């Protein structure tokens, strides 16, 4: 690959892109520590940690949102990976009729706008008594998370050589031992990436949580919008930063893990 010195185009792209992409996030950071920022001042009059201490206090309405977002995200990610593991293996390593159709079916939720199916799912949740509950919201989050986990793991299994397992079996290893000592270590980076993607998808869900949770299940994104609309911009900004932190962490980790 030819690498050249940064030209004018590059500097323009970097400046414009950097300002458009990172400027808004810096602005959120400033709002989260601003104590009064009246028109037409260019910078906040004073700084305060009020919003941040509110976000991390135990008796605010933020604590249940943090707890719900984290626990729902972890459960959704774990269930997605457990379900995606055998499915991805089937798609990548087994040859059977209808394999392409099976893959397309599993990817359907990624290609269809979620609103209609989520509204229908609300009726299922009502019938099961899971509407307006945390388990109901977690089940609804599986719909976008599972296909992503399958997509990531199918990529990992496509590069996996099943001969390795056969050799271990021939040498006398039990199937459980083969899974634990051969398959899982090789697939581990894919598993981690699938878990991370599924968590992030659940973590940033908005409309699905709103519809299935019926306003009774609060999560971080719902609280960001609630505080913003309620007029407390400092807390909304601080919560927005909490919202983006796992995403940025994941992007940095992923680029280090995949391009060493």
């Amino acid at each position: 690959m030819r690498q050249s010195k940064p030209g004018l185009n590059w500097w323009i792209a970097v400046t414009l892109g950097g300002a458009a992409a990172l400027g808004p996030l810096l602005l959120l950071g400033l709002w989260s520590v601003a104590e009064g920022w009246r028109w037409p001042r260019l910078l906040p009059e004073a700084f305060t940690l009020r919003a941040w201490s509110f976000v991390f206090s135990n008796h605010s309405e933020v604590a249940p949102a943090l707890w719900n977002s984290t626990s729902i995200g972890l459960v959704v990610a774990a269930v997605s990976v457990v379900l995606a593991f055998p499915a991805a293996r089937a798609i990548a390593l087994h040859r059977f009729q209808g394999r392409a159709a099976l893959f397309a079916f599993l990817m359907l939720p990624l290609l269809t706008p979620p609103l209609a199916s989520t509204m229908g799912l609300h009726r299922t949740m009502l019938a099961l008594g899971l509407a307006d509950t945390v388990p109901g919201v977690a089940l609804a989050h599986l719909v976008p998370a599972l296909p992503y986990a399958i997509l990531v793991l199918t990529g990992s299994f496509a590069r996996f050589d099943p001969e390795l397992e056969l050799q271990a079996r021939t040498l006398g290893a039990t199937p459980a031992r083969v899974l634990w000592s051969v398959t899982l270590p090789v697939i581990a980076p894919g598993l981690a990436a699938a878990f991370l993607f599924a968590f992030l998808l659940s973590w940033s869900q908005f409309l699905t949580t709103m519809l299935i949770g019926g306003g009774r299940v609060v999560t971080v994104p719902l609280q960001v919008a609630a505080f913003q609309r309620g007029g407390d911009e400092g807390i909304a900004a601080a919560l927005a930063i909490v919202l983006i932190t796992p995403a940025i962490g994941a992007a940095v980790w992923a680029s280090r893990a995949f391009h060493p």
Partner: protein
Amino acid sequence: MKGAWLAAPAVLVIALLFVGGLILALAGSLPLSNYESVLRGSEFQSSLVLTVWIAAVSTLFSAVLGLLAALAFRHTAPRLSAMVLQVVVVVPHLAFAVAAIHLLAPSGLIARVLLAAGLLPSQGAFPELLYDGWGIGIISVYVVKETPFLALLCLTVLLRLDRGLEEAARLLGASRLQTLLHVTLPLVAPTLGAGSAVVFAFVFSAFEVPWLVGRTYPAMLGVVAQKRFMEGELADRPEALAVAVLGALVAIVVTAAGTALAGRRNAAV
């Protein structure tokens, strides 16, 4: 057939939660007279026009800017650029929507900077960008979010591209612009086309961004459907479902058409 059973649990989950949801949404939106009254309603019509406008403009800007960014980052520090682009791709839209309020509002940072620079006579002179009829606030958020997504897609193709084709064109006397238009762009077009179709469908089914930085009337389709579903009477639900189903249909048709078109061009290349 033995291996297929490994996928059974995942298939069951998608079938119950997703396909089941779609079927219940379809069933709940019947009889067809609900669709008739939705399609005849002025709210749906103006909302559909607004939704198509916002999705089309956001997609167009993101595609052009994404392509330009990919071309600019192609030769210099492509890996580092890809990492920065990735950060923007994974940050939830909601964060950019909140930031857009602080930037674009009549009392936002842009208005303040213009006033300090003497370019704005008074606060009232700053145009209404957020809750305007053209959806400028919504479009801005999506352009910032989707440009890096399309740039990443283009960059991946460009980095894998056989440089020989372009070098041959240059050696045969083609100018830089000719090489770009007749060699490079046709090679990137299928990926950019498919990616743009995905972006269009995604913006088309937007909710939280227009809910925060858009007008309440006319609102984008997702906002209209959600409002009728959650705030309306139980009797409003069939029509809310009809709006959601119609929106999904348009989005699916556009994605399928875009992907098919891109696939055909891909086969031609």
